[in-house]
C-alpha cells in the first residue's frame, strides 16, 4: 500500500510547489507572454525573506506565517521593479525577454551570494509543522500538507481575482491585443504592473514553501525554474486549469518514477513524457484555438 501512497502524497506536495511557482508564471508568461527566467530568483527572494523574518521574529511558530505576506511583498516589488526598469520596453518581443531576464537572474544570484554569503542560511520549520501523520505506511509530513494547502489557497485567490474582477478581463485583453485594449480604456501600464507584481509575489510565497525544504541558497531558483515553465507549457498558456493539472501530474509522475528508478532518471523521463504529451496536445492541455491564420 505504501508503495502506492508514498509517491502519490509526496508527489502531490512537489506538484503543489511547482504549482505555486507556475501560477506566477501562468500570469507573467501565460497571460502576458513574458518569459521571465528570473522568476526562480524571486522564489529565492522569498526563501531569503523567510530566513530574514526568522531573524526578526524569532518565534519560529509564527515567523513563517509572517514571512508569507512579507515574501509576497518583497518578491512582488522585485517583480515590479523588473517590469518598470526592463520588461515594459519589451512587450512586443516576448522571446527576447527570456534573454534579458537570464541576465537579471545572473545578477540576482550573484547579489544573493555577496549579501548572504555563498553558504545557505537555515530556515527552521515551525513546531506545528514539525511532524507527520501515518497514511498507509507513509509518514506524511505536515510540511507537505501545508505546501498543498498553500498552493490551493494561492490558486483560489488568483482564480477569484481573474474570474470575478474586471482586472481578470483586462489582463486577458491586454495580452491579446495591447493597442486595442488601450483604446478600450484599459490602462495597460497599470495592468502590466499589477500582473507582474502579483505573479512575482506568488513566487515569493513559493519561496517560503521551498525554504522549508532546502533552506536558502543563491542557486535555489535554478532548481525549479525549468520544471515550472514546463508545467505552464504543458498546461496550456493562459489556462489555470491546465496549469493545475500539469503541476500535479508532473509532481506525482516524477515521484513514482523516482520511486521505481531514480531521481535522475525520473527527471529525464518526465521531461521526455512532457515532450510526448505535447505531441498529443501541441498547445498544451487547454489552450483554445481560434480560426484561420490569426
Amino acid at each position, binding site marked *: 500500500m505504501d508503495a502506492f501512497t508514498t509517491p502519490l502524497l509526496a508527489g502531490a506536495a512537489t506538484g503543489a510547489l511547482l504549482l505555486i511557482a507556475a501560477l506566477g508564471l501562468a500570469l507573467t508568461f501565460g497571460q502576458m507572454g513574458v518569459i521571465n527566467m528570473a522568476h526562480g530568483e524571486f522564489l529565492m527572494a522569498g526563501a531569503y525573506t523567510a530566513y530574514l523574518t526568522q531573524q526578526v521574529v524569532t518565534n519560529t511558530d509564527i515567523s513563517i506565517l509572517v514571512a508569507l505576506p512579507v515574501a509576497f511583498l518583497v518578491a512582488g516589488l522585485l517583480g515590479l521593479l523588473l517590469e518598470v526598469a526592463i520588461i515594459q520596453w519589451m512587450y512586443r518581443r516576448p522571446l527576447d525577454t527570456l534573454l534579458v531576464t537570464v541576465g537579471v537572474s545572473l545578477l540576482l544570484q550573484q547579489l544573493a551570494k555577496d549579501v548572504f554569503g555563498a553558504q545557505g542560511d537555515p530556515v527552521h520549520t515551525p513546531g506545528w509543522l514539525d511532524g507527520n501523520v501515518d497514511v498507509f505506511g507513509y509518514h506524511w509530513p505536515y510540511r507537505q500538507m501545508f505546501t498543498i494547502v498553500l498552493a490551493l489557497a494561492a490558486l483560489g485567490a488568483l482564480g477569484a481575482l481573474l474570474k470575478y474582477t*474586471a482586472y481578470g478581463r483586462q489582463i486577458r485583453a491586454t495580452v491579446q491585443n495591447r493597442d486595442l485594449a*488601450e483604446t478600450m*480604456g484599459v490602462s495597460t501600464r497599470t495592468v502590466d504592473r499589477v500582473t507582474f507584481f502579483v505573479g512575482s509575489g506568488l513566487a515569493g510565497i513559493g519561496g517560503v514553501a521551498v525554504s522549508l525544504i532546502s533552506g536558502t541558497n543563491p542557486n535555489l531558483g535554478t532548481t525549479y525554474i525549468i520544471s515550472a515553465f514546463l508545467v505552464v507549457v504543458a498546461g496550456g498558456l493562459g489556462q489555470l486549469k491546465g496549469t493545475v493539472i500539469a503541476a500535479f501530474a508532473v509532481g506525482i509522475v516524477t515521484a513514482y518514477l523516482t520511486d521505481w528508478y531514480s531521481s535522475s532518471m525520473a527527471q529525464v523521463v518526465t521531461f521526455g513524457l512532457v515532450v510526448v504529451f505535447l505531441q498529443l496536445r501541441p498547445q498544451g492541455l487547454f489552450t*483554445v484555438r*481560434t480560426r484561420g491564420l490569426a
Partner: protein
Amino acid sequence: MLELRGVSAGYGRTRVLEDVSLEVPDGGAVAVMGHNGAGKTTLLRVAVGLLPVMRGQVLLDGEDVTRFRPNKRVARGLGYVPQGQLSFPQMTTLENLQLVSTDRAAIDEVLDTFPALRDLLARRAGLLSGGQRQQLAIARTLLTKPRMLILDEPTEGIQPNVVAEIEAVITALTARGDLSVLLVEQHVGFALRSTDAYYVLESGRVTSSGAGGAGALEAVRTAMAV
C-alpha cells in the same frame, strides 16, 4: 472637440503624415478620404495616441493631449474603432463587451443595434466571422459611451443591411448633437451622407477639404482622381 495641428508622423524613419491639420468641431462629423496607403489609418492612430507624433500637436477640447496615452484619451471621451475587425480573440463576445462595461442595460442597448451578436455572446470572438467581429468592434466602442467616435472603415466587410443600420446609428447619434465623428470610409456616398465636412489625404498631406453633403461628391471625386 478634436484638433490636429501641423502633425507629422510615421514609422521608424519613414514619414507618412506631413504637416496635417484638421479639426472636428463639437458635435460635428468629419470624413477623411484617400487612396490606399494615403495615411488615413496613420492619422487616426495619431489622434487616439497609438502612434507618437514627430511634430505637431493633438488637442482634445482645447487641451494638449499629445503626450497622453490612449486610455487617457478614451477616458476623456474618445472612442476608436480600428481598421481590420479587431477583437480579443480568446474572450467571448460577451467578455469583449464586459471589458468596457458590465452594465447589463447598456450592453442590451448596443445589442439592440447589432441583434446578430445576441446569439453569439458565448462564442469566442476569434471564432466569429469577419463581419460579426466588425459589428462587435463597433458595439464595444459604442459601449464606452464616447463623446467622439473615430471610425476606420467601419463598414468594411459588413453586410449591406447592417451597413445601413450603422449609418442610421451614426446619423442618429450625431443628430443628438452630443457626438462628434471622425470617419475614414471608402464608400464616398456613405461618408459624405454621414458627415458635414471632409478632408482628402494624398501621400500624407491634406490636398483638399470642404463642407460635406451631396454637393461635395463631385469635389471629392476630382480631388481623388489625380
